[in-house]
């Protein structure tokens, strides 16, 4: 029976609770210079990474140990299960790790929220990193974080299936027509000529080859509904309809690499991570990596990377930047590349990498003309919807898809959301 006394008691309880919680929660320090820095003595840094496997974890831990020795600080490397969620929670709780991987799709959200410490100006040799990736990790005209590594898309070719179809190395497609012809020839029985996924992160390469892209160079405008993009998607649609190209889920594979390894696909479009996956899951499959065929506007591919973020709220920013600079040094990048198969993000290290790994030559070549990922705040949802739409590209009008991408994109970007 709720009486006035009870209501008053309840209100009192609630007030006490609110006071207790707000009292306990740490203050967010959004001051311009961030929290007071701890520069004295040995510092303990927390590093959060989303690892691709044991090899990468071991490589990062080893490099961190080397830095510990050199700097006298200590580093605690934590492995994230779901880094977007964990970082989101850490920022909301105001207890972020000092340094961490930032997914390119989350970069703009974090940078806009002021969670990333823009340390680009403290890296004297920033110019040595791939210009395209630097552009992707620039926010508000400032280079915010350094690309951890790089990978580009190449055309993987199953050499056995290739020979069986009566093709030779000279037939590696140089342009769209040849790609279509080769895919037609290779499609037989259970084998599909080209298998990829219904993502702009793959099909976007065709858009770029046709001279289009989702945004303009500075990522300030959405340029989805261009005739170039429509041309690219029309080409993809044609191949999808002919059956010589399929999406991975249509051939019952979790991703295109699986279809490729299982011999369901004679060609696929994937990045450097394919090498590691093939070595682990399908070591007996022989394959070559060729450059992606050129479109009407020449060669193009897509580049991917994560960056090493430093938390704006860290009390060890100087040490964290130093750690990141160490981890992205030429030597460490090359060691990491050997362990993970991902390419260095330093242009100079890339040359050494190419000499050491001639089988990855096509991927290395791609970084000269690659397009970096879209890093516009709030664009995730829009691009996810575009990917969903691309799944039904075979039955839909490419122009309508692009128009809806344009509308949704302008909505989000316009809102500054």
């Amino acid at each position, binding site marked *: 029976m709720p009486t006035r006394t009870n209501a008053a008691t309840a209100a009192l309880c609630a007030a006490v609770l609110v006071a207790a919680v707000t009292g306990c929660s740490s203050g967010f320090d959004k001051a311009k210079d961030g929290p007071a820095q701890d520069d004295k003595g040995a510092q303990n840094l927390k590093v959060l990474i989303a690892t691709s496997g044991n090899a990468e974890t071991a490589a990062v831990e080893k490099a961190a140990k080397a830095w510990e020795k050199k700097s006298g600080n200590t580093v605690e490397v934590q492995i994230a299960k779901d880094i977007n969620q964990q970082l989101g929670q850490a920022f909301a709780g105001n207890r972020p790790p000092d340094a961490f991987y930032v997914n390119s799709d989350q970069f703009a959200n974090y940078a806009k929220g002021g969670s990333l410490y823009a340390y680009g100006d403290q890296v004297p040799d920033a110019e040595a990193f791939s210009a395209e990736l630097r552009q992707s990790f620039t926010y508000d005209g400032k280079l915010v974080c350094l690309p951890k590594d790089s990978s580009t898309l190449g055309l993987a070719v199953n050499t056995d299936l290739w020979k069986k179809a009566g093709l030779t190395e000279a037939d590696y497609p140089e342009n769209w027509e040849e790609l279509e012809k080769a895919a037609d020839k290779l499609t037989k029985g259970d084998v599909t000529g080209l298998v990829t996924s219904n993502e702009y992160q793959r099909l976007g390469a065709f858009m770029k080859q046709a001279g289009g892209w989702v945004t303009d160079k500075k990522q300030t405008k959405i340029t989805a509904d261009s005739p170039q993009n429509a041309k690219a998607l029309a080409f993809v649609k044609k191949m999808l309809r002919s059956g010589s190209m399929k999406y991975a889920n249509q051939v019952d594979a979790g991703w295109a690499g699986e279809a490729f390894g299982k011999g369901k696909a004679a060609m696929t479009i994937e990045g450097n991570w394919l090498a590691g996956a093939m070595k682990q899951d399908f070591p007996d499959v022989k394959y070559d990596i060729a450059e992606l065929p050129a479109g009407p506007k020449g060669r193009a591919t897509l580049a991917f990377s994560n960056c090493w973020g430093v938390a704006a709220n860290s009390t060890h920013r100087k040490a964290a930047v130093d750690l990141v600079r160490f981890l992205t040094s030429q030597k460490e990048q090359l060691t990491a590349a050997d362990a993970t198969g991902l390419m260095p993000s330093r242009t100079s290290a890339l040359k050494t990498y190419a000499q050491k790994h001639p089988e990855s030559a096509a991927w290395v070549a791609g970084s000269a003309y690659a397009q970096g990922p879209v890093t516009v705040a709030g664009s995730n949802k829009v691009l996810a919807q575009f990917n*969903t739409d691309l799944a039904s590209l075979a039955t839909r009008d490419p122009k309508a898809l692009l128009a809806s991408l344009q509308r949704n994109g302008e909505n989000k970007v316009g809102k500054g959301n």
Partner: protein
Amino acid sequence: MTADVIERPPKRRAPRSPEPGTRNLRRGEGLWGWLFVSPMVTVLGLFLLLPILMAAWVSLLDWDGQSNPFTADARFVGLDNYRNLLTEDGLDRTLFATSLRNNLYYVLLTVPLQTALALTLAIVVNQRLLRGRGLLRTTFFFPSVTSSIAVSTVFLFLFQGSGAINRMLSWIGVQGPNWFADSRGVLRVLLSGLGLVDSVAPGAAAPGEGFMGLAWSEWLAGPSVAMSTLIVLAVWTTSGTFMLIFLAALQDIPRELEEAAALDGVNRRQMLFHVILPALRPVLFLVLTLGLISTWQVFDQVYVMGQGEPGNTTLTPAFLSYTSGFEDADYGQGAAIAFILLAIVLVLTAFQRWALRERGPRTEVRRAGR
């Protein structure tokens, strides 16, 4: 929360004692009462009430999760988040409408199916003459104690294009679909024989057409083939739990009641509909309510099996709320989705309570007795 929803109609309270002498005594009791429950009140308040209030506040903000939501850093936008989801034309509303559509079909199919299956199983294993009852009960209950993540993963393999289910279908000459890649609505698949066009993935409707940014044809397409497998999974895993609840209630029905009915010469059908089911009414309400709440909040199966794929047809409001927060850094919208979901569950539960209220002679008798 469910506890007071399923509370039986309150008995009449004993009349308060009017003597002034006892009042002070009562007052002291009240104070002690508060003292004794204060640990629980504190825990509930801290971990339930307060977070709900904070989430309600967040749903009114444009908050990116990277500042203190209780300072001016997070912009107060009033009902904008709700407006974006419900009235304003755009991607947010289309996605939300799609998720509502998906979940509505999920609830409409899952809740009746799991309740009916659970009741049937309970009646079967309640038969005293059945041999191996213990074994059967364990078997039926087993899916419920298995982790939903593990079950989802097994289902992923079973329903692959070349998985066990399709192989079994091929024995009887049916070519099964590629379950998790098939975004066609099952209603549309069934109707396509009548000359309807093949389905396309849900996209934005032309302005002024459809409802909440989703074309009518999309609303009416039914659950997708992929969603249907989620429904099968939910029915299979939850019916065991509900069977147990029904079983407990069945064993609570006085034996004399059934014997008396048997003496009156009812057949089995009449026994079920006029004796057993009425006796199960409160439990039926419990099972339906629990089912309704859990199906509207379906998340883990979606997270493991589809993440909204294919064609957004396994997108649910709970999952959309999660992605709004953690993928799109739009926690305000995520919280708003959660509150709309809460409103839906409350309204539907109230409706259910009204629909399952006690009617007929028994109520009359009680009224007359007052």
